[in-house]
């Protein structure tokens, strides 16, 4: 099968299309106040009922943005177990652009627990760490 010829355009889609790796992965996730939450490290897709006989009528749908400690796997290779990812449901995503906006406050999401923990257990114990700079 030759790939180097002029290829036809695919059937048009009624809505927007985007390429996941190009336009979603590694994008910053912001809450409604513009507070950074994390970055999109992966996407959770629904698993087809039978991978050996894929159903053309039921393609996988995006269920969640995933974020997790993937730095080491990017440097050394391998894959992070799915259990190490933190999910941000697709249903709370409000906009996909140069950043991904979600409709929930950063403090209400599991994805920002490390920042909350640092704030409550470390930063707040530093003198002056409980208020804005004057």
């Amino acid at each position, binding site marked *: *099968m030759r*790939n*180097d010829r*002029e*290829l*036809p*355009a*695919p*059937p*048009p*889609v*009624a*809505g*927007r*299309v*985007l*390429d*996941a*790796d*190009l336009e*979603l*992965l590694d994008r910053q996730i912001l809450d409604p106040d513009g507070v950074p939450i994390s970055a999109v490290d*992966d*996407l*959770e*897709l*629904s*698993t*087809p009922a039978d*991978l*050996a*006989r*894929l159903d*053309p009528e039921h*393609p*996988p*749908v*995006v269920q969640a943005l*995933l974020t997790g400690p993937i730095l080491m796997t990017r440097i050394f290779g391998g*894959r992070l177990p*799915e259990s190490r*990812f933190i999910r941000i*449901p*697709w*249903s*709370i*995503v*409000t906009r996909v652009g140069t950043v991904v906006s979600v*409709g929930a406050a950063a403090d209400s999401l599991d994805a920002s627990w490390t920042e909350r923990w640092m704030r409550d257990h470390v930063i707040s114990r530093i003198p002056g760490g409980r208020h804005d700079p004057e």
Partner: protein
Amino acid sequence: MILSDLLGSPVLTADGERVGQVVDARLALDGPPDGFMVRTRVYGLVVSPHAHRSFAGYERTGVDAPALIARFLSWRARGSVLVLWTDLASFTDDVVRLRPGARLYSPRLEHSGP
């Protein structure tokens, strides 16, 4: 299933001929409302005959500047194609197999839009 399961997987025709490897998944935002967004499905897979992943997607967008970089990166990703989900037969053992008669489409993003 997570997206990384698909990315990097080899893609074979029904006859076992290698088309390339999955470098991206094209999503279509055309489903019923799902919270703030609409349900988003996998429309197809972008497949490259080369071992490396696409960089910056020059081969899929109309961006042609800076010209030298655009030309080099487009050349680097030459031969990329889009296969639709409806043309996928199976995804087992980390290999994607196409249905007999599966068609290859242009991977350019502006060709897939409404």
